[in-house]
């Protein structure tokens, strides 16, 4: 069995699961969880291609993962802070509760 194929399958599934969570969960925090999953899927891909790809002295894949993690952490922090703000206003974390863009 091709290990890269396994890895890619795993990341595809993780990505799909994350997307599913984003599209269906109603708790905003859990939407965030879905986003984290998708990011992780991307990271897995980078690792996989680095591990089983041609040798790369520049280590592009791992570097990307490193920055990706940093950005993800930032994004989570800001996201959660926003959610807390919204929660203070509406006493709810239901994503559908904030629909002031309603046409």
């Amino acid at each position, binding site marked *: 069995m091709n290990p890269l194929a396994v890895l890619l399958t795993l990341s595809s599934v993780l990505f799909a699961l994350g997307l599913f969570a984003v599209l269906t969960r109603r*708790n905003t*925090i859990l939407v965030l969880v879905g986003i984290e999953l998708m990011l992780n899927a991307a990271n897995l891909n980078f690792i996989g291609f680095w*591990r089983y790809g041609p040798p790369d002295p520049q280590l592009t894949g*791992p570097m990307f993962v490193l920055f990706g993690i*940093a950005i*993800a952490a930032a994004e989570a922090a800001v996201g*959660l802070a926003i*959610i807390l703000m919204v929660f203070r206003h509406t006493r709810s974390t239901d994503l559908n509760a904030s629909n002031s863009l309603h046409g």
Partner: protein
Amino acid sequence: MTALLILSPLIMLAALGAVWKARPVHAGLLLALTLSLAGMLYIALGAEFLGLVQFMVYVGAVAVLIVFALLITRPRDEIEEIARRPKSVGPGLLCTLPLLATLLYTVDRTLPEAPPGTADLPVRRIGELLFTTHAPAVLAVAILLTAVMLGAALFAREPSKKP
């Protein structure tokens, strides 16, 4: 290869749980599990440094943050919350499944024979690269994180009582 075959199903299961579990706290904890398993996978693949970073940042910070946030925003009515399973599953699946199918199909069809691997990730090299080639990016990220810290602190601050 072995570790990969063992960990992959576990990760998938944990992720599925994180997505499907009704109780938000459970979902959060399962996310932490998924991430830590992914970290182990990194280590198994030879990227020890990345694995450790994954543990520290994702499991140690992000997941914990999410769980805390869930605990803070816990509504008074637990029962109603439990009833809030994922909604609109149909459209969700309708979006997700073609994507998954496409991805898997692509992986299956286009991947060549297993290429030879390199399992070497020297930490010293990462350090060098970070502070030479990627120094501007590091700076940018540093600024971003500082801004995030300040911003998050501002957002999360208890609003003043003054009107």
